[in-house]
């Protein structure tokens, strides 16, 4: 579905990614794990077009999207939940969701999308008219996810969904990620919380200083002694 080939990204003179290759297949949950600054977020933002790559290529469903601007990539069926949620602070929950459906032209489709988001996250329905900045961190995460789903993506990119959330809420959010995946949306997930990510992912890539150092099925990686030592706190 998504193929990233030999991707290198530079921020000025600093190398953020070095010849990273990875792929995501239809229906999977793929996790990218690694320490701070390993380049996990850069991979996601390069796929979604926010950051431009130096060399390498990205193909989605057979189409080359390497140089495509971010606002067009959304229309291809890739949607991103950005790091730090980035909800539209002064808009209400409802308006945020409507913005998520910006590329949809059919009002009925937008309405259905909002209903779907409210079924997935009943908390958001209670806060429908509230400004997004007045929501708690967990609610904002739900809103950012609901908003990203509005465009009916086939691939959902999730950047640190657990960041800054209470453990109970993290579990709840991950349950919902699995639920979203079961309805047919493929997911690529970046997480600091490696044990949580490996518990729901099918496959995973381990990044270190901008390079993929390990990859494989999530269960293999979870039992790999090096991974356990470096990322699972043993």
């Amino acid at each position, binding site marked *: 579905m998504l193929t990233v080939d030999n991707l290198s990204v530079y921020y000025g003179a600093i190398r953020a990614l070095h010849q990273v290759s990875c792929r995501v297949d239809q229906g999977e949950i793929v996790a990218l794990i690694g320490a701070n600054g390993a380049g996990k977020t850069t991979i996601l933002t390069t796929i979604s077009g926010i950051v431009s790559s130096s060399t390498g290529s990205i193909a989605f469903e057979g189409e080359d999207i390497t140089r495509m601007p*971010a*606002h067009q990539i*959304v*229309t291809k069926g890739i949607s991103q939940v950005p790091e730090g949620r*980035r909800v*539209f602070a002064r808009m209400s929950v409802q308006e945020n969701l409507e913005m998520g459906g*910006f590329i949809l032209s059919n009002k009925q489709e937008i309405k259905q999308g909002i209903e779907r988001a409210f079924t997935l996250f009943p908390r958001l329905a209670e806060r429908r*008219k509230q400004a997004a900045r007045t929501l708690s961190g967990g609610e904002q995460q739900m809103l950012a996810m609901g908003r990203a789903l509005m*465009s009916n993506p086939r691939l959902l990119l999730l950047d640190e969904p657990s960041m800054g959330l209470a453990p109970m809420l993290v579990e709840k959010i991950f349950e919902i990620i699995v639920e979203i995946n079961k309805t047919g949306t493929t997911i690529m997930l970046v997480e600091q919380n490696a044990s949580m990510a490996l518990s729901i992912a099918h496959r995973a890539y381990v990044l270190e200083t901008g390079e993929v150092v390990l990859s494989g099925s999530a269960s293999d990686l979870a039992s790999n002694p090096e991974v356990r030592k470096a990322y699972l706190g043993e």
Partner: protein
Amino acid sequence: MLNNLVNSIDPYLLQILVNIGIGIILALGLNIITGLTGQLSLGHAAFMSVGAFTGALLTIKLGLPFYLTILLSGSITAVVAALIGWPILRLSGDYLAICTLGFAEIVKVVFLNLDITNKALGLTVPLPPSFLPMPIIVLIVVVLAIIASAFIQNSRFGRALMAIRDDEIAAESMGINIARYKVQSFAVSAFLAGIGGCLYGHFLGYINPSDFGFLKSIDMLSMIVLGGLGSVPGAVFGASILSAAPEFLRFMSQYRMLVYGALLVFLMVFRPNGLLGGVNFTDLVLRKLGVKPHLATHKQEGQ
């Protein structure tokens, strides 16, 4: 009949009212790029200047009907804004502000040296060929500008602008072409500034490039900040107060600008979001009618 009506109003008061009207048009214009889209422009006087000189020249050289002159002045200003906006709107925050400031200075110096704008002598603008008296024309344009602003704010276009203001990266991830929307917003904003300038020139009868300096840009900015950024009623209110204030404070003679400055400082301390910032008028009206909008939806949603 309209002429009689206009003539029956005290000319001094009429002049203040027309100034307020032009102020409202300018403030509504700046509100679109700075209030709604969140891009600080410190050079809007330049667009007013372009509109004023375009309008004056159209009347002097071509003697077009006034409504056409107004529309053309606005459109030409919008095109100028789009051309200048394309490269500079990639900048953000302070950098954009400084760029617009520089652009305004360039416009001023160019107009001060062009033969067609009569260099530093400025242009005497004849009365426009129109059967409606000037104050009525200004009133009509004000009403249209308010309706258009309210319409833009509630449209898909307006929502995209507000999304850009709140978070550019998120807006882009929603599929909004940020560069295009910023330029469009800048052009619409300049369209109103150009119209405001055109009316200003024809009403005053004389324009000089130095009238449209940095202070004029700051005047417009003060109006929308005072009223509340991004709020249409706020822009109208702020423009009304600040256009009229220098006149009402005239009895204090040389102290009036001091008091004016102090007023702005106090307002920003006690109402940092502007007088009408963050006030939702639909909700206010509903509440007055006895409906509590927030509670109503809560009851409904929270079973």
